[in-house]
């Protein structure tokens, strides 16, 4: 099965990524809710990389690879943009966002709550985000 996709950094390609994840997961007989959660978590990371790390530059690319071993799904998302600084990340206060009318900043919170493990790695070559989800 094809388990890797590379797309250029435009928001319109997010649909292609979601469809790719959906097709890959189709054989695992997941519930609608779990399937949607996993697709969402991958979409959120890819959206952040496209918009923030690569400034929607269509000459840049992100790649997603999916593997499954012993009931553990692993999503590996790589890019060459600005690295995510996890140490600067703060969990959002949603009520405060509503009060001040803030539009963004809840995507990573969704990812953290959906996935079993979320890792960010960077070296001089590329940035890698690893998402793990136990499904069996």
């Amino acid at each position, binding site marked *: 099965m094809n388990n890797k996709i590379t797309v250029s950094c435009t928001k319109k390609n*997010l649909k292609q990524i979601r469809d790719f994840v959906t097709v890959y997961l189709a054989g695992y007989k997941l519930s*609608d809710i779990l399937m949607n959660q996993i697709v969402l978590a991958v979409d959120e990371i890819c959206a952040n990389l496209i918009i923030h790390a690569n400034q929607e530059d269509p000459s840049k690319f992100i790649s997603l690879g999916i593997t499954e071993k012993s009931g553990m799904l692993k999503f590996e998302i790589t890019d060459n943009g600005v690295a995510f600084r996890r140490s600067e990340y703060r969990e959002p206060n949603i009520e405060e966002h*509503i009060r001040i*009318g803030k*539009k963004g900043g809840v*995507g990573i919170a969704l990812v953290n709550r959906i996935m079993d493990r979320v890792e960010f790695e960077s070296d001089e070559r590329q940035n890698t985000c690893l998402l793990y989800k136990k499904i069996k």
Partner: protein
Amino acid sequence: MPMKITNQIKDTTIIITLDGELDASSSVMLDEALSDPEIMTYSKILVDCENLNYISSAGLGVFISHLQRFEDAQIKLIFYNMQDKVRNVFEILGLDLLMTIVSDYEEAMTIADE
């Protein structure tokens, strides 16, 4: 087209029907629709989510960013006909407790008239 937004007016209520997937790309359209000054002339905004098949944080963010403005203007924002998987995304962030989500149109109209 990933997202289609249609409006229907009934007296002082505007019914916004969302059809498709609300992601970082398509949520811009929704933001434009909710930013239209005319929307502030209604007393109720009903959002029909029956054909909303997907919502990401960008879509949620649009509603989050307009909610206080509607509340300050005493405009009720009510979601109905929401699919379980979409409602689950609201629930993960606790937004189901901060926003009004009801089962169907009749209930939405009843709440809107309170």
